[in-house]
């Protein structure tokens, strides 16, 4: 039992409550926001040390032994996700100080942001399938409100599609939970992992797995269920786009990884059917997403479609179902959160300088803001998997995993999609950065320095931090790959998780 496990949920809740109490004071809220995120990061780091040294940490809430109460479980995968979520929290906390207007601050931006993080963290930590549903609800209501906050027409349009489709996903999820409960009489995931293999009708277990694939598939925006994402992610303020684009869809991916390695495994499903389907889904998601990105000319829409495409890579790694594949998938998730969020954050700075997100009306950033250009290059080429940046290791692990399984077609598709990713990144580079300065630009363009008056540095410093991390992970990949490998090995050997939760079997 490790009491620290409540902190990743409790700290954001407390922070949100405090921020709500002081919602009249923007200044105070900003401080509370950043401090809350830093406290969260600290707690996660302490917990991380425990998991790293002593293995999976468990907390039985209310001291009710599993499977009767709700269990929080921190394995390496959960910790890596928590870690990246806390880092993004700090980054977004700082970026928001400048990016978010007073009106939004007055109407609960900070409480909503922290509740969102609370939901995300709860999803990572919970060891109970119904509790996961609850955290999804928390995330959904917080994210919907963040999307809609501001009430502009396109925001509401996007937010409505977002909320309807995601509610539908929750409905399917709940139905799946009910079926699982009907078959096993339990909701605790470790207990489910024990009981599902005992269900005689394995076909029914496979069917329920498909229900979860559809539900979490909607959440993580896979083909053909991704519509809500490109419809909504480009509408809110950049800080929100970044946390959504970076973090939120990955919660769906996390849930997929969790249920397809813990619940619907070879032991309970007995064949490769699900992995074949995941492979197809991954392939189509990659291709359709990247083509969507290629067809757009708006900074944030390109990024949004890329999210879809890159989810495909993660699904592919999951479908490989080997240590290498899972390691690649997990590494890909972590790297992608960094690179993708950073690109969104950069789009925000570019928009402040040029007054638009439309690439056709952008230009001159390389000429006047070379440092910003370098930051963009780092993030964009990392996203495309260029060495020696973080994305390279993600790509390399997946390529190696695919080739070692002799799955040539999907690996080939993954490689080609990498080139198309590069293509759509260069589209932004060739116009917004290399293009000539457009005729109509805000008066401050070229004069406003990144560091100095105008306080743009509040936006630039978070971007610098992430870019530094991308380089660090790229140059010194070993410890990060090892952590992902530990996570993958824990996933493949479910007995460790089960014993941690239920005690020796």
């Amino acid at each position, binding site marked *: 039992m490790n009491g620290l496990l409540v902190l990743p949920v409790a700290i954001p809740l407390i922070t949100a409550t405090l921020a709500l109490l002081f919602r009249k004071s923007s200044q105070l809220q900003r401080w509370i926001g950043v401090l809350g995120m830093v406290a969260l990061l600290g707690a996660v780091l302490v917990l991380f040390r425990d998991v790293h040294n002593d293995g999976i940490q468990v907390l039985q809430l209310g001291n009710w032994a599993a499977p009767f109460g709700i269990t929080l479980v921190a394995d390496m995968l959960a910790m890596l996700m928590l870690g990246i979520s806390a880092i993004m929290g700090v980054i977004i906390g700082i970026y928001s100080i400048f990016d978010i207007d007073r009106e939004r601050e007055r109407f609960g931006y900070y409480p909503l942001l922290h509740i969102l993080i609370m939901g995300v963290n709860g999803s990572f930590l919970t060891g109970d399938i119904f509790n996961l549903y609850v955290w999804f609800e928390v995330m959904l209501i917080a994210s919907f409100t963040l999307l809609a906050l501001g009430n502009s027409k396109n925001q509401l349009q996007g937010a409505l599609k977002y909320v309807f489709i995601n509610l539908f996903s929750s409905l399917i999820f709940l139905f799946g939970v009910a079926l699982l409960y009907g078959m096993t009489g339990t909701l605790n995931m470790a207990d489910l992992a024990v009981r599902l293999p005992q269900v005689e009708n394995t076909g*029914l277990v496979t069917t329920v797995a498909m229900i979860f694939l559809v539900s979490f598939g909607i959440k993580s925006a896979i083909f053909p269920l991704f519509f809500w994402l490109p419809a909504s992610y480009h509408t809110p303020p950049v800080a929100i786009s970044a946390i959504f684009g970076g973090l939120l869809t990955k919660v769906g991916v996390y849930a997929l990884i969790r249920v397809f390695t813990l619940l619907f495994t070879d032991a309970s499903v007995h064949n490769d059917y699900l992995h074949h389907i995941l492979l197809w889904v991954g392939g189509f998601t990659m291709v359709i997403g990247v083509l969507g990105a290629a*067809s757009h000319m708006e900074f944030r829409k390109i990024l949004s479609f890329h999210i879809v495409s890159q989810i495909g890579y993660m699904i592919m790694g999951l479908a490989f179902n080997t240590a290498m594949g899972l390691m690649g998938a997990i590494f890909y998730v972590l790297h992608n959160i960094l690179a993708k969020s950073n690109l969104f954050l950069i789009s925000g700075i570019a928009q402040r300088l040029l007054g638009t997100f439309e690439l056709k009306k952008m230009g001159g950033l390389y000429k006047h803001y070379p440092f910003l250009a370098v930051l963009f290059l780092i993030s964009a080429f990392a996203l495309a998997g260029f060495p020696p940046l973080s994305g390279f290791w993600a790509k390399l692990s997946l390529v190696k995993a695919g080739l070692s399984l002799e799955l040539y077609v999907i690996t080939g598709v993954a490689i080609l999609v990498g*080139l198309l990713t590069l293509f759509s990144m260069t589209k932004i580079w060739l116009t917004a950065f290399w293009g000539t300065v457009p005729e109509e630009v805000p008066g401050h363009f070229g004069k406003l320095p990144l560091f100095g008056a105008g306080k743009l540095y509040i936006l630039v410093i978070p971007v610098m931090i992430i870019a530094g991390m991308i380089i660090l992970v790229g140059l010194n990949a070993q410890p990060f790959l090892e952590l992902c490998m530990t996570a993958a090995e824990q996933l493949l050997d479910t007995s460790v998780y089960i014993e941690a939760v239920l005690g020796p079997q």
Partner: protein
Amino acid sequence: MLTVIALIFIVALVSPWIHKLFGNKSGWVLALLPFGSFLYLASWLPHITAGNVVQQSTPWVSMALFQVDLAFYLDGLSLMFGLIITGIGTFIVLYGSGYLSGDAYLSRFYCAVLLFMGSMLGVVLADNLISIFVFWELTSFTSFILIGFSHEQENSRKAALKALLVTGIGGLALLAGLVLMGFASGHWEVSALLNEGDIIRNHPHYLAILILVLAGAFTKSAQFPFSFWLPGAMAAPTPVSAYLHSATMVKAGVYLLARMNPVLGSTETWLILVGGFGLLTLLVSAWLALSFTDMKQILAYSTVMALGTMIMLIGLGTEMAMKGLAVYILSHAMYKGALFMVAGAVDHEAGTRDVLKLGGLRPLMPISFAAAALAAISMAGIPPLYGFIAKEIVYEAALEAPLWPVLVITLAVIANIAIVAASAIVVIRPFLGKKVETPKKAHEAPLTMWIGPLILAVLGVLFGVLPFLVDRSLMIPVASSVFGAPMDFYLSLWHGFNLPLVLSLLTLTGGILVYLVWDRLRESAPMKVYQSGFAMGPINGYEGLLAGLLGLAGWQTRTIQNGLMSNYLITILVTMLVAVGYTFITRSGLVWNHSFENMLLQEWALSIAILTSLGIILAFRNSRLTMVIGAGVVGFSLALIYLMHGAADLAMTQVLVETLTVILVVLVLIHVPKLIEVRSTTSRIRDAVVAVGAGVLMTLLILAVTAVPFDAFISEYYAEASYPLAHGRNIVNVILVDFRALDTMGEVVVVAIAGLAVYALIKMKRFGSPDDPETEGAAPDGTASKQGKSS
């Protein structure tokens, strides 16, 4: 060696500050870096000459399943490339400081060029397959940045993209090939692979590996039909063209194939593919050079021709071919580097590179002329220059070709005739003849810009006259590395009166004749057709492919992401129906062991009530009020079902929620406009089918699941533990606030946030800037109010 490469990268990154510190002299300061690296590499020369190799390795990632070392391997081949990269690199840094002097981007040039140098050095020194790829990609990246140097010009940007995509796709193929090679052999170090060639060659994946590696090498080294990006890359400033796109980067593919020759080579497939592509490239591009008047374009196509020659030699794989390869690479790097730099100097001083607009520059630019003349003579293969020796051996190798020697030598001679003419054009036209009025008043280039070409050109003479300077020390180790076995030879100018010499004379004569008729030839119709076919053809192919891809992407996105909510929902539902339904039917099958005999009358009645109210909703779908009432009936029926099964508290909650919902919705409805049905009959039928399908599927699933015997151990535990342990008599309450308190807390948060959301959405003032993208799809979107519209 890692230290050297790391040092180059670090200096590259701080070069803008070095430039600031030293101002005009920064070129000289920064040139010390490649020069120092050159000296370092040269210091290994005696060691290599003695037949040794140098191996250094630093682990980068070292895990059970994942091993990548920063391993380096220095033998004859990598040493020669290393010396070319650092040696010419020294001159390029100097040259760049003169060529771009006063340019605001000079520091960016230094930075990118040094980054490139480090990467390129990495490519040729790396031993580990993965680290080769790492540096390989870095050269593509830096090349992209450098080609787009004049980024405000559209064609620079396009050329940069073209180069990045072509070399990028090749690089990705290479990655796959290298990984397959590693899997096939179990070795990830080239040095280990060199002795394991048979394993790879006999492996079932040999052909795949070969094609993938060739894809990487051919795109990088501009083999036909992938050569089109290279002439486009001439949009870069001349120092970049001279360095990347002539002397070094484009030879990465040559290097790779030479390196892999002992591993992948000496098969018939290798001979046909590598030799064939090389031969085709050298023939096609040599004559294309004559269809241009821009000095850089002429040189670019002659570079492609040279690359083709090198690739062809690797394909031939004979001892003579290896010898030729070693000499040819060195001589080409020297004369072509020099010629490019002179072309840049002419452009810089006279304001144009078009040979038709130039003439009589010799008295004005005497040193540049001397360098250009010597280099061109070498390129034309005229004794006593080093280029002559190179060409003689190439001819000898062609004559000894293992397959169709007559064809090979004929094509080689035809191509070389064009190169002789091209050599003449780039020197005689600009420097000799009548003085022509040029856009700028020409004068000699500054020292930084002529010192490099002059030294390179003089070296060409020196090595030609005194070939023993390099043959034993460097050429033999190079040829041996590529051949994969020790070789021994010496070089000399005079080979006796033999067939290659006759062919050389023939080539020279032919070249001079072609030069004399060049003006007419260039303007002739066949030449135009030739140019549009072979130069423009691949470019059009590339652009067509790109446009097609974008078209497909646009069409796909418009179709899928069309902005219509109803389409989205229908797609999701159908996906679920198909995925879940198909799995259910094929994997599990229907489970039907329920008996309905024990169903009570009231249960039948309720079921009928629910179904009827659903029918009412469907029938009166135009009236919102009827729909609400129908939904209400369903909800209250559910409450009754709870009640019948003994869940009185649940039933009560349901009744309360249902009552409130109906009342609230009806109140809201008063303010909402009348619902108008806009769906066509077809889409209504479609919707009905999907809806009924979803309902039926769920019902069948529940029937199947309830057939599994239910283990109520958790409920039983709650019943037992509720009072003694949790001190609560109401089990539901205890579940909510104790057993599963976290769920409740989460739901409380949801409700609180919902309240906040309602408040914010009502009170907050409306945002929205004119720039906001109004729609999400490419097509005008259906707004929330016309959600129903479809088909």
